[in-house]
């Protein structure tokens, strides 16, 4: 189920958030209803209170006379507590639901945005958005939004009751109440910029502190560590002074708000007291109104308290929607929807349908067995291999093309090496074969068939990839290896490890293949991680291999072993090798030299050396080690 593309850019943040909440209308309505019920109970309680005090104080009644009223009041107190409970439970379950749905959408959208987007962002920031950013919406939906409704309903209910009873007090209420939202809006306007500035100063201070502490060893090495304490004190003092001078003004507006409600209560008290004195109203009426006065302002003051939750929720939502609004890359076809079908999606944020030259229409229901043509790669009649024809690509964030007018051949079953300085476009070409990036112009054909017509997921099943820095996931070594082949037997895994020269290392581990690795387990060295990626490639045993040759510093003995491993792996497979070292380049049957996104030379080691171009000068300068 794909939501229709709705133009979400000009609708305000509030409306978008509200739409999320109305996906569960009933829960929201009930939350507000129970909150309002609590407010009505408070009014009733005030009435009983005034009625019984009046009876005892002026009519000389005893406990027995008001016992019925008091019992009724006890019931009301319990009802009020129950209403509070129900309203809070409903509000939090509504908020939890919205949060998890939103987080799901966010993560699925990030996954669909593909690595070209995520690799450009700070992982820490994206994680924080998906975790804390989404959490910040909890208070928005469970507190701020219901309170927004209650701050209208409860005072309005009280007003409707008080007006017929005592128009004068009604007028005091009526004129002071709107001042509160006005002041709040004023405070909010200044507070937003002030809080942001203050938060900025604080985060600067924290960043400075973290920088100093992380660099502590360096400072010690440079003999400067002891001078830092004084600097930290100074920075803290400066932060205090700046913040306090700001707060002196911010708090002033909060003072106004506070004053408005207490002063109004005082005005009401004096005003009814005086009329009572001249017998223009009854004591019970007066007491009832006096008890109601704080209750009248309470929802408005609570809204003020929760205003902050509303603001931080809005700013968190801004970033979340920004990610959700990032259009999916051009011409990425999908054979399966990763998006779960949930109630929220139809509310629809702008997730534009991929346009452009998508040859395979999107399917509406996810099914892995697609009726796509067989993946060629030497299986069909046409065995021309992979062919790039006048391919261009420019990254969204750059002005110059990363790849311009590239035409090249990667013959089946052979090793084709890409050579060039960093930034020459080698990784972009690999990313195109991995289908992380699609050509802006030009075509890539696989044995004559357009690569763009093959669904990326299908295509990727026929390739292995050995990146420079493979990702290690939280889990055991075996689980990390099985990523490449979920149902691989232990024997298969051991065999792959043997071939990748990883087995000796695994045997030194007490837990062997069950050793937990990743962020929360044993750390692998750069060389070990690379060999793990090789083992993954062996396990997958795919006809196409894309290999980014390891560059991390290895001693010559390790390096030689790794080369043997690589050599075996490439044997007989269609290989695109991003080469950094001469000895692997030598083994390639074809070499393509890239320079500033263009193909500068093609040939073999011998022919390129002879022609005396870029390749020959690279070799002579020793830039290929």
């Amino acid at each position, binding site marked *: 189920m794909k939501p229709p593309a709705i133009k979400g850019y000009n609708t305000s943040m509030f409306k978008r958030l509200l739409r999320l909440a109305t996906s569960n209308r009933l829960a929201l309505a009930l939350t507000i209803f129970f909150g309002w019920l609590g407010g009505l109970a408070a009014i009733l*309680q005030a009435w009983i*209170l005034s009625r*019984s005090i009046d009876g*005892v104080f002026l009519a000389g009644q*005893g*406990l027995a006379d008001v016992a019925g009223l*008091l019992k009724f*009041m006890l019931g009301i107190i319990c009802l*009020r507590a*129950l209403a509070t409970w129900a309203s*809070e439970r409903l509000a*939090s379950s509504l908020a*939890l639901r919205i949060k*998890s749905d939103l987080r799901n959408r966010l993560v699925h959208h*990030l996954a669909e945005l593909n*690595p070209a987007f*995520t*690799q450009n962002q700070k*992982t820490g920031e994206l*994680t924080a958005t998906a975790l804390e950013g989404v959490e910040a919406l909890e208070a928005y939906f*469970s507190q701020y939004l219901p309170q927004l409704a209650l701050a209208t309903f409860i005072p309005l209910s009280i007003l409707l009751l008080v007006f017929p009873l005592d128009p004068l007090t009604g007028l005091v209420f009526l004129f002071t109440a709107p001042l509160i939202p006005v002041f709040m809006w004023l405070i909010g306007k200044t507070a937003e910029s002030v809080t942001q500035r203050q938060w900025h100063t604080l985060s600067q201070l924290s960043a400075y502190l*973290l920088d100093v*502490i*992380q660099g*502590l*060893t360096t400072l010690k*090495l*440079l*003999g400067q560590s002891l001078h830092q*304490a004084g600097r930290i*004190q100074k920075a*803290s003092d400066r932060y205090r002074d700046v913040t306090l001078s700001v*707060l002196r003004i911010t708090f002033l507006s909060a003072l106004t708000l506070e*004053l408005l409600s*207490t002063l109004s209560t*005082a005005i009401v*008290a004096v005003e*009814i*007291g005086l009329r*009572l004195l001249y017998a223009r109203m009854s*004591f019970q009426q007066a007491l009832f109104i006096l*008890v109601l006065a*704080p209750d009248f302002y309470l929802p408005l003051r609570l809204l003020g308290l929760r205003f902050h939750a509303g603001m931080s929720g809005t700013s968190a939502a801004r970033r979340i929607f920004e990610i959700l609004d990032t259009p999916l890359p051009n011409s990425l076809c999908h054979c399966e929807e*990763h998006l779960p079908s949930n109630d929220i999606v139809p509310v629809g944020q702008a997730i534009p349908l991929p346009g452009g030259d998508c040859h395979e229409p999107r399917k509406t229901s996810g099914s892995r067995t697609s009726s796509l043509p067989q993946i060629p790669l030497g299986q069909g009649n046409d065995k021309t291999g992979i062919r790039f024809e006048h391919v261009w690509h420019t990254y969204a964030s750059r002005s110059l093309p990363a790849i311009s007018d590239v035409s090249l051949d990667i013959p089946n079953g052979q090793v084709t090496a890409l050579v060039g300085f960093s930034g020459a476009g080698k990784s972009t070409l690999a990313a195109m074969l991995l289908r*992380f990036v699609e050509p802006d112009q030009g075509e890539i054909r696989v044995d004559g068939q357009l690569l763009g017509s093959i669904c990326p997921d299908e295509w*990727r099943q026929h*390739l292995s990839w050995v990146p420079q820095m493979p*990702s290690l996931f*939280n889990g055991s070594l075996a689980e990390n290896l099985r990523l490449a082949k979920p149902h691989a037997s232990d024997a298969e895994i051991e065999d792959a490890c043997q071939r990748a020269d990883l087995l000796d290392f695994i045997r030194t581990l007490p837990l062997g293949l069950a050793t937990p690795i*990743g962020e*929360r387990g044993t*750390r692998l060295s750069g*060389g070990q991680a690379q060999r793990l990626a090789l083992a993954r490639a062996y396990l997958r045993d795919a006809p196409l291999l894309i290999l980014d040759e390891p560059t991390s510093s290895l001693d*010559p003995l390790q390096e030689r072993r790794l080369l043997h491993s690589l050599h075996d792996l490439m044997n007989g497979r269609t290989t695109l090798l991003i080469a950094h070292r001469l000895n692997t380049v*030598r083994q390639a049957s074809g070499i393509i030299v890239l320079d500033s996104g263009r193909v500068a030379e093609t040939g073999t*080691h011998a022919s390129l050396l002879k022609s005396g171009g870029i390749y020959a000068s690279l*070799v002579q300068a*020793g*830039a290929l*080690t």
Partner: protein
Amino acid sequence: MKTMSRLLHFILPVWRWLLLAVGLGALTIASSIALLATSAYLISAAALHPSIAELQVAIVGVRFFGLSRGVFRYLERLTSHETTFRLLGRLRVWFYGVLEPLAPARLGGERSGDLLSRFLADIETLENFYVRVLAPPLVALVILAGTGLFMAGFDVRLSALLLATLLLVGVGLTWLSLVLGRKPGQVLVEAKASLQADLVDGLQGLPDLLVYDGLPAYFGRLDASQTGLLQAQHRMAAISALQSALNQLLTGLGTWLVLVLGILLVSTGQLPGIYLAVIVLAAMASFEAVQGLPLAAQYLESNLQAARRLFAMADTPPAVLDIAGSQVKIGSADLTVEDLGFTYPGTSSDPPTLSDIHFELPVGKHIAILGVSGSGKSTLFQVLLRFWEMDAGEITLAGLDVHQFTQESVRQCFSVLPQNIYLFNTSLRENLLVADPAANPGQIGQALSTACLDEFVASLPQGLETLVGERGLQLSGGERQRLGLARLLLKHSPIYLLDEPTAQMDTLLEARIIRNLQTALQGHSLLWITQRLVGLEWMDEILVMQAGRISQRGTHAELIGVDGLYKQMWLAHNDLFALQDS
């Protein structure tokens, strides 16, 4: 309890501020109680239709309390923030003082970044300690005492009844929500951590997941950890709803009980009826003082946890201690190492990380240390720099045991290039000046050109004022390494320790830098760690390390003449190059 008293110890110097803030906080709540009480008195008195003069005091009172609450609240917020900031400033300086002697040995190596930011978060958590933890119960105590006395003025039984219900909320409910919330609270923290780990996994590993079609399985895992978080949050929400409802119920019940007792007292003539509304409304308002306590207790919990972590760090003994009366002056930079042995505490000592290391480094000698990764080369530097205490053997400087000098003065002898260069988030220039705040442009230029960084800096529009970004990440690995090298050259300490200074550079640059260093370090002592067999010909001595021991030593010419690791590596090295001619 111990953590609490240590934490309170930090408060001592700001106790005046604290007292002032608590006093103002109590006055704020007292104002709203008084506002309702005087208002109730006003209308009760007015109901008896006295002359207006008799009501004047009450009217003035109502007006005063109507104003005072806002003013007191304003002053209270200012003072409490002042207190907080003073407290926080002290905590920061104190914690830096704690960390300084612990770096780097006790700071957990590679993952220190995460660890340290957690500590900073802990310090910021303690920001709440005064406002949200310490102040509410103190304010509540003052209000409880005040209300108790006020009520006792009418009848002791009224006072006892109200105090009992106030305590039921303030102590009973607080305790209940603490007990109920403890376990789910821990589950919640763990569920969050596991979801975070899964999110980082997925975002960083997206390319691998896509290529190996691991997304469906990954989403399954993510769903599971999200469900875990949801369940924990549901449980916490249930507890918090229960707490709110009980809070509401007890407040209503307290008011109701005071009302019933008040009616009883009035009808039996023990309390003038005019005060009935006064006591009920005062009671109602007094609950504000205790309503925030369950929340304060939750903050207390997280504050104590944060403080416990910080204090645990503060209690960690440093890896190396200076002996009292250590000398500061070191005569010459002649270094000798004899039979040095070392094993990281807590790891297996078989084989030791370092054993039987001995060499002499008189001023001007150049030594290379060659070995495969994990052979103990970098550890040797750590021990030489007195970051770790040696287990056996002796290190001498100017003929004297290094234990006779302070660590600080020993480190003054060394110019060190560590493997991981840390750059501060400021300009290139500031990063260089850390080594020598008084360096002149000539010296800086010289250092840059030796480190082959002059062309790079010249190519930058902002030159040396260019910002390097967080941890220097705006620069490439090779640029960071060269900046580290330039910085080190400004330190001018006599013994140079370089840990794979060219690891992240291409061969061209490597050759240039080695040539430059050869010239620049003429006449200085040098210990150079490497695992690449480049530039070793000009070393006075090469030490080959294997499993923490020196397995071979000699010059390049000597070592390639005998069988051993050096020759093997040399052959492999040539092999790799020979491939091109086959």
